[in-house]
């Protein structure tokens, strides 16, 4: 742990590859394709151009939003290219800490039957496998970087409906679960991970995966009437009624988060900042505004960071036929994170 701190501090810039080949015996290494080589003391943003893949024409999933999130952040001068960390593709080994071997084998080669494919919402393709692996790699890298820098955001992530042996609801691999499981470690002093899932849909896959795991606390705030109707049991579920607006929503989060941090005392927070509680979201049944989302993200990250706990954030869900509008909405997270970075003198 000490080694990592020295090597990845601001004044020593080394490529990850070199570091790996160097004297690491305990295989703690960043899952990054290339290290941020220039001086960058700014908020780490995790992004990969391969977060996207081709989908059949008119497919409902807003695949185009991922590159647009980065595009708008740079265009609006919220971030620069130098802040971008590029993740590695998640290996089968990494994924196997959560997913079954059988599922991974089938998934990689496309042996997913029609019924299973239908439940995921995606037709299988090599492209979709690849993009999911990069996305998961991105969340893992965000978590690793957060541990070092205090705060990091991906421009994708939040695939919380994936279960160990099957996908569901546009989720094929559970990135948050993989990141949590991986960062938890295997030593006798496991890290404690708090997953704060504010996507409007319950994080059912994640809840199921960590049901018996005391070192991972799953907290989900979601709309009761949204998918999935068949709910799992998170460690703390807050089920909201349709139509809830900014103030009441914020109060709800404020009621629970500080107490959780106080009692569970996590070493790391993974934050799913889904924008589908927004009133314009096509699927979500709540009524948050842009301002509400910003206040929410600001509150969550500031509350965690000011307690000295690192937080890695992912964009979570959002559904709209206008990719640009949606990407801008997702970029609220990174703007709030930038504000937190500044305010907390990081």
């Amino acid at each position: 742990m000490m080694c990592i701190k020295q090597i990845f501090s601001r004044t020593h810039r080394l490529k990850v590859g070199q570091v790996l080949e160097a004297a690491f015996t305990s295989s703690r290494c960043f899952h990054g394709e290339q290290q941020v080589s220039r001086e960058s003391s700014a908020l780490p943003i995790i992004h990969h151009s391969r977060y996207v893949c081709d989908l059949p024409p008119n497919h409902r999933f807003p695949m185009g939003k991922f590159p647009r999130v980065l595009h708008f952040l740079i265009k609006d001068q919220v971030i620069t290219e130098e802040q971008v960390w590029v993740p590695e593709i998640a290996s089968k080994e990494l994924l196997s800490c959560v997913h079954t071997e059988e599922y991974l084998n089938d998934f990689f080669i496309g042996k997913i039957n029609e019924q299973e494919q239908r439940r995921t919402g995606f037709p299988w393709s090599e492209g979709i496998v690849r993009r999911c692996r990069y996305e998961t790699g991105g969340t893992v890298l965000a978590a690793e970087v957060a541990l070092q820098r205090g705060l990091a955001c991906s421009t994708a992530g939040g695939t919380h409906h994936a279960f160990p042996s099957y996908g569901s609801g546009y989720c094929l691999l559970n990135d948050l679960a993989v990141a949590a499981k991986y960062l938890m470690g295997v030593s006798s002093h496991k890290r404690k991970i708090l997953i704060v899932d504010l996507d409007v849909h319950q994080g059912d896959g994640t809840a199921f995966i960590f049901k018996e795991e005391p070192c991972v606390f799953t907290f989900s705030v979601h709309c009761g009437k949204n998918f999935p109707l068949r709910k799992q049991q998170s460690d703390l579920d807050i089920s909201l009624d349709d139509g809830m607006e900014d103030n009441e929503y914020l109060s709800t989060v404020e009621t629970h988060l500080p107490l959780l941090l106080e009692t569970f005392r996590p070493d790391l927070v993974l934050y799913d900042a889904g924008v589908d509680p927004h009133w314009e979201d096509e699927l979500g049944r709540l009524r948050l505004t842009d301002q509400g989302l910003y206040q929410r993200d600001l509150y969550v990250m500031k509350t965690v960071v000011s307690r000295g706990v690192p937080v890695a954030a992912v964009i979570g869900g959002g559904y709209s036929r206008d990719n640009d509008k949606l990407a801008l909405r997702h970029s609220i997270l990174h703007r709030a994170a930038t504000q937190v970075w500044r305010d907390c003198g990081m």
Partner: protein
Amino acid sequence: MAERGEADFNDILDDWFIETLKTYKDLHVYQLEHPTQVIEWTSGKTVCVAGYSSSKNEILELQLPLKLFAEENKGLCAERDFKVVHGGFTEGPVRCLRHVPGTRCVVTNDGLTSDLQVWTVGGDDSDVIRRTGSVAGRKTRKKKSDSEGGSRIAARHSSQVLHGAQSDDIQLTQLTSGQILYTPEMTSSDPLSSLQFVSDDVFLAGCCNGNVYIADTRASASPQLSPAPPGESVPWWTDAAAGASSGSFIRVSSSGRAEISDLRNPGAAVSRAQLSVQSRRCNPGHVTVSWAPALNDCIAVSGFSGLVQIYNTSGWGAEPQEVQPLFEHRGHAVSSQSDEGDVFVTSQLWHPERPRTLLSAASDGSVHVWDWVDQSDGDR
């Protein structure tokens, strides 16, 4: 055990939800306290529905979810629910309901007598649908016929209503004065399954036995008869195309046999088909067949089961081949908690302008409005 059943049902609903993301551009559901057998447009965004239980029923005007109509700015409109905008009570069941164009009136029939009830929807800031008149049928039916329909109704301009329970008691009544403007000269007395204007003055009278009469309200001559297709099971339902496929009319039998004819040559059949319907479960009185007003050659068929089927008739030939639907709306069947066979669609209605938007109602009280994705061609 009950808990597990609920989890399984929720799982089915979740599967269905994911599927709808692909198969529908829009889908909104509503639950009535009591099922309706009628859905009728009263404006571009509102429909009238009414119950059919044996005693008192609600008659309601529903506003469709506004989100459905907000085209580019879908996000700007958060209103995703149906809304009850007007309501009232009837004394008996409502088996037929028609809006009188250009007015705020609807006309109903209870299926028991041939009399009609006239209602006014709202007005003067009221949210009530109230009974404001009645129209006597030409004669009281002496016995309940096979068709549960009672009087069929068609309304046209100037508050004129065409109605009748059998082919020989059809009359055109002026609502405001009560004056009878026209009665066709019919030789036979066939129970009707539909009455429909195909133009300002020409109308079709579809009979349960499959006969179709074409008449002109300006002419005193006897209506033209298009005889029932021979040898097929009864009853039959008829619909004439007014929009996209104008000039054609279709007949569908209780065994799912379909026949299309041309109004200009009604004696002959243009094309035929055998529809893929579960005819065993057919519930006469609830079968609805309707031409799409804005989608060429397409028809919607419902009432045989919990499905609404869309067929493209352009490929049909002279010999009745078995045909597969272009699209099936399974929403009522999937989301009904009763046994699979029990729920059936009671009514279905196309949007007058949007090519693939329909409303459907089922025996469990559900009402759906849906805009389906045509997956037959690569891109829409």
